[in-house]
């Protein structure tokens, strides 16, 4: 029976994999990071239902991890693809974790004892937390196995770590293996689903907001980590003991901005900001919360009603795209024109959250080379037809799912992933029936 390769195990990749696997086909699910889950694992609560993101994600992760038809290849990358629909030849490199995952029990002693513990910026916590070289990206990781980051690990980089690497000494299962090498797997698949996701816009590209200069100007994704129970502050909105009375959100940072080269709308920021404003209101009941916007794009099911709810929770929506943020004493000052007042305004803040948009991943070029795909003007992967074929590519047998094709929220990513799965199933069914009829 045929198989499909799914590249990327965020919510889109996982959903595509699950649908295909549930239908009885084999899936190779390749994920670059040590754990599956993608961006959704980084979120606190999702809009508009305010579901705890991990709570709705982990069942899917667990299903993926335990599915008989899904072969999970984490900490792995696809390095070569050739062939055609029905018969793609794929090479996957399993990067060395320096930990034998068959022996690893997930006890965490290696990370506890790592010489570099607390010294490396945690990618999962978007720089707001630290980790060691031996680490678990987040508590609900699937597979729940530790990884040693070869880029930073002293043993890997320099061949020595003090007298003896404390991780290896501490590990009760003898799972640490610095001799581990990358492994190359060769697979043949009938179809490929690309679900490589997105990166958040880097607000260093908008220096007028003082991101990177003022530590109380953060991105939306960083806010998720602050708000999240599994984050660096265990869910409290706080910054170094600073009292937070005034929070300002700024929409459209890095989106709808031709000056930056991102003319497009990132689709999710209006809603994620509304949700974050709600979370601030919940956790800091007396704070003044303002949102600066150009248009409120609350277009989906339940979105407008959620926007109504958030305003009723005393969140001030002010129309105007702020021009700059400066400091006055200890406070930040957001300078904008309030276009409904028709006047320039200055709003003081203790915390500014930039609603950064979604941009194509930094490695998108590599993906397009790998699979001979094209990119749209906005830099995302190109679909076969923008109206009628949103999940097909120009290459038969290769499909797109999720944000790699363009920004979208979770329900739209899930729907698209299922759509890609259907297409993959069609290819595999046709391939299988052809194989059967060839035999006959």
């Amino acid at each position, binding site marked *: 029976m045929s198989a499909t390769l799914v590249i990327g195990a965020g919510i889109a990749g996982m*959903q595509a994999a699950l*649908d295909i696997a*549930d*239908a*009885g*086909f084999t899936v190779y699910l390749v994920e670059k990071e040590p754990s599956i889950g993608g961006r959704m694992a980084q979120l606190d609560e999702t809009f*508009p*239902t305010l579901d*705890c993101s991990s*709570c*709705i994600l*982990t*069942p899917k992760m*667990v*299903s993926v*991890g*335990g599915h008989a038809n899904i072969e999970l290849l984490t900490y792995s990358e696809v390095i070569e693809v050739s062939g055609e629909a029905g018969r793609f030849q794929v090479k996957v490199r399993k990067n060395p974790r320096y930990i034998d995952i068959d022996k690893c029990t*997930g006890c965490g002693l290696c990370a506890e004892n790592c010489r570099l513990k607390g010294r490396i910026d945690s990618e999962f916590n978007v720089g707001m937390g630290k980790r060691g070289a031996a680490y678990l990206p987040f*508590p*609900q990781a699937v*597979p*729940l196995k530790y990884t040693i980051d070869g880029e930073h690990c002293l043993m890997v980089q320099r061949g020595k770590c003090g007298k003896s690497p404390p991780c290896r000494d501490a590990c009760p299962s003898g799972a640490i293996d610095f001799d581990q090498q990358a492994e190359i797997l060769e697979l043949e698949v009938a179809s490929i689903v690309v679900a490589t996701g997105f990166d958040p816009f880097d607000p260093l590209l908008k220096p007028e907001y003082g991101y990177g200069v003022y530590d109380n100007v953060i991105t939306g994704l960083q806010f998720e980590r602050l708000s999240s129970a*599994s984050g660096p502050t265990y869910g409290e909105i706080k910054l170094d003991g600073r009292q937070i009375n005034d929070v300002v959100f700024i929409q459209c940072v890095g989106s709808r901005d*031709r000056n930056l080269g991102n*003319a*497009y*709308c990132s689709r999710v920021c209006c809603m994620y900001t509304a949700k974050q404003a709600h979370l601030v209101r919940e956790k800091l009941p007396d704070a003044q919360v303002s949102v600066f916007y150009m248009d409120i*794009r*609350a*277009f*989906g*099911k*339940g*979105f*407008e*009603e959620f926007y*109504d709810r958030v305003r009723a929770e005393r969140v001030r929506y002010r129309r105007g795209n702020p021009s700059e943020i400066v400091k006055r004493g200890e406070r930040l000052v957001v300078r904008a024109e309030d276009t*409904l007042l028709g006047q320039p305004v200055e709003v003081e803040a203790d915390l500014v959250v930039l609603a950064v948009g979604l941009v194509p991943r930094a490695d998108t070029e590599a993906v397009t080379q790998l699979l001979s795909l094209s990119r*749209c003007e906005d830099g*995302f992967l190109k679909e076969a037809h*923008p*109206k*009628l074929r*949103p999940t097909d590519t120009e290459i038969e047998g290769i499909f797109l799912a999720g944000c790699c*094709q*363009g920004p979208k929220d*979770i*329900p*739209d990513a*899930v*729907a*698209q992933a*299922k*759509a890609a799965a*259907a297409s993959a*199933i*069609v290819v595999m*069914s*046709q391939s299988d*029936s052809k194989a059967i009829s060839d035999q006959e």
Partner: protein
Amino acid sequence: MAPKVGVYVCHCGINIAHTVDVEEVAKATAEVANVAVARNYIYMCSDPGQQLIQDDIRELGLDRVVVASCSPRMHELTFRRVIQEAGLNPYYLQIANIREQCSWVHTDREAATEKAKDIVAGAVSRSCLLQPLEERDTEVTPSALILGGGIAGLQAALEIADAGYEAHVIEKEAALGGHIAHLTNTFPTVESVPSLLTEVLERVQTHPRIEVLTHSRVVDVDGFIGNFQVQVETLPGDADTPTATELTVGAIVVATGFDNFDATLKPEFGYGTYDRVITGPELEKLLARADGPDTSSLLGSDEIEDVVFIQCVGSRDRNGGNPYCSRVCCMYTAKQAYLLRQMLPDSRITVFYMDVRAFGKGFEQFYDQVRGQRVLYRRGNPSEIYRRQSKLVVRAEDTLLGKPIEVEADLVVLATGLVPRQDANDTSTLLKLSRSEDGFFMELHPKLRPVETTSDGVFLAGCCQSPKDVTDTIAQAKAAASSALIPLSLGKVRVESITCSVDQLLCSGCGLCAEACVYGALTLNERTGIMTANQVLCKGCGACATACPSGAIVLRHFTPDQILAEIEGAV
């Protein structure tokens, strides 16, 4: 031999632990009768959490498992599988909901902890009386029914048929294509819809595995996933009596579409009074005339100098409209403004809006383009329209000028929203679908299950679930197809194990249970005078058990003894 119960109390991060002292609960539960072990862990649903349970089952010989955590709706299936993998019958699992029913609804830590202890004790007590249940599969008919022949239905049909299964498309009207058959061009690419649609229609009509029945309605649906019996009536315009067709299908995709908001419900716009106030869909029809767009047909032979579009008519409106956003109107208006600009190069075109929702791929760029074509966007939701001699006058406030204004128009186009179909109730009754607060059909979970419904084997596609454009409709239709393809591909589907059971000695055949059953699972066996329960149709709702005056019918896994044990354990 007394049962050995393993109890696992979940912290759920801080979701439970913040309000309930989970360690305390585990400690207290360890003292409860029949409890062999009581643990607490930060995330029971995670890999190590599950491992804990499986290890204990093997090492301690547990034969019952209680997980005190979130609602069973979240993880009951997960944990059933966990214990099954460790060798236990999955129905020896009992969930104690100490999140939705405890930590999430209380603030007093002491009281919440006590309550959690009671809930868990009840669960333990019940678990001791749980019985193993059989897991069965049923065959799946390798075909699907598609209700509605618009773009959503057609796309779903194509996907299912391409994968090798039969698809029956049932369409009420004479022709396929639904609403998009009345569109001119798409946004944002401004391509011709008729030619796009023709492509799709051709594929559908020539596909060996797609059957299309137009002029047809589904009048009855019986059965269950894998085996739906569908009665279809076909009545072409010139016929007197309908032809009946019976179909057996494995899955159903609902793609019944939407209706347009009735602009007469907003009398302040004078729709119905002034014939030059029209709706977006009406403009679309005018533009789509087969003999080419003809401006003079819009208004007799008058010249059109001033056109005004008004957004959000009937949407985002708690006062005579609907509170939700109809998602497509900002873009269809931009497209219409664009098209009119091509036809009427010297006219003044104004769009009144509240927010411009150009959120999709290429949308913002198209919005830029339309403004570049000298279409003036003015922020303000007009309050009323009246007539001044030969012109219409639109009264609004331009909120960016901060001043009330009057704009004269020769043509006003109301961007009416999308509403659930008038006959949506018929469909929801037929298929036991739920409706969301906005009136559209309800998906199983708004985030993670956008196409499934509460009825297994019945899926949603397109605007019947909520307003969306063609691109998102197609994606969703394919998603629905994917869900349908799961049972179709497997060829079999697991049936509910928690079903009712009739005690032949107690049953007097009174039939009250059958009256209570909405699934038609109970019938009287004429020969024996005893009720028979169809184990496949039964969904385990328990209504029959409550209705039976003799206690002759019980719901497995929810027997009176089990429920009473839970109550006694809790108090």
